[in-house]
């Protein structure tokens, strides 16, 4: 982010940036930065809270009126909560046709989860009026099939022309995770980002399949899978949570 600020300002465009990692911003010293104490991914603090977002935005923009820099100011107000919203009110209960609960393979349980969560994702779509899925062009059941086919004897063909196998698998995993997260966020109860992460990585068959996909990528000779093997599939925080969970069971 600071590099973009440096290049744009060098070309004559005044810039101000939000800083999420103060140590990086201090090292790069961009012209103007507002450091905020929010989680990575939420530079304006709180989803659905226009007033809070507005305070952050104005605090940042007002730095444009300073007379000298470089400068880093702190936004000292913590985000009041980390929830992504509770269940919508006034919506009918979702009609769902889940497969029978299964103690079978991870693939069987993954299929059952996708089937069940489809109803909740429909609720999310009605509630939010938007989704960040839809980039692969695959419906959830087709996305499921595409992912589990990677664990078979031969990798599936990319679902879109011009994609490498690694690009296609990366988009598919990100999309399946977005489908899970969006569906979970509207289920009854209050859900923070951390709780949804723990649910996905510690308690779903999808999480198990993702870990198997990472292992597959590690074993593969396909260089386009390298990123998935090393870090673009399983978050570092998820690995830490999985390790802690394993230690707790030991």
């Amino acid at each position, binding site marked *: 982010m600071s590099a973009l600020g440096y290049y*744009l300002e060098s070309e004559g465009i005044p810039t101000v940036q939000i800083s999420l990692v103060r140590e990086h911003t201090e090292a790069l010293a961009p012209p103007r930065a507002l450091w905020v104490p929010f989680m990575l991914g939420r530079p304006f603090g709180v989803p659905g809270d226009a007033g809070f977002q507005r305070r952050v935005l104005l605090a940042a923009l007002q730095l444009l009126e300073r*007379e000298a820099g470089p400068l880093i100011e702190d936004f000292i107000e913590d985000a009041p909560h980390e929830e992504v919203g509770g269940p919508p009110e006034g919506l009918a209960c979702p009609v769902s046709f889940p497969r029978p609960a299964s103690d079978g393979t991870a693939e069987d349980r993954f299929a059952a989860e996708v089937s069940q969560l489809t109803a909740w994702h429909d609720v999310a779509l009605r509630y939010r009026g938007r989704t960040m899925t839809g980039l692969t062009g695959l419906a959830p059941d087709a996305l499921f099939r595409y992912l589990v086919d990677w664990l078979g004897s031969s990798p599936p063909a990319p679902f879109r022309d011009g994609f490498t196998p690694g690009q296609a698998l990366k988009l598919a995993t990100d999309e399946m995770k977005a489908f899970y997260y969006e569906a979970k966020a509207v289920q009854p109860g209050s859900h923070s980002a951390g709780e949804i992460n723990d649910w996905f990585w510690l308690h779903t068959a999808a999480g198990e399949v993702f870990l198997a996909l990472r292992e597959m990528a590690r074993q593969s000779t396909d260089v386009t899978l390298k990123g998935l093997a090393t870090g673009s599939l399983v978050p570092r925080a998820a690995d830490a949570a999985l390790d802690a969970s394993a230690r707790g069971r030991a």
Partner: protein
Amino acid sequence: MVRLADLPESERQHLLARVPTLPAFPGRPWVSGPALANRRVAIVSTAGLHLRSDRPFASGAAGSDYRVIPGDVDAADLVTSHASVNFDRSGMQADVNVAFPLDRLKELASEQQIGSVAAFHYSFMGAVSPITAYEREARALAGLLKQDAVDAVLLSPV
């Protein structure tokens, strides 16, 4: 949350380990401008955002290009293809303004707290290393911003 001290140790160490790898840019560019109420503001994000119909970002240095986000974009058309999985996406899924505050910017313009909102906004994908890989596209983007009479850029990371 989320000061480095609050992060899991592995995440904290990863972020701190990047500090000595960051480049030292020569000089300290500083461009002044009019009062905020007279500025035309564009958002440049590194959230890997783009329209659903756009080409997704590539990984590695090939991903140092940008996507154009029209000022009249419908939030329902925005998706992300960011390479990193180490930041929260649940917030953006619920409300894209938490990372790309276009609605808030339009509100400030209607209240005349800023002059106007740019016709176009832009998103890079912030997982490119080294960060100097952005130079060519960023410098070219400055020309487009000037054509749009932009004199304030809000840089928004994830």
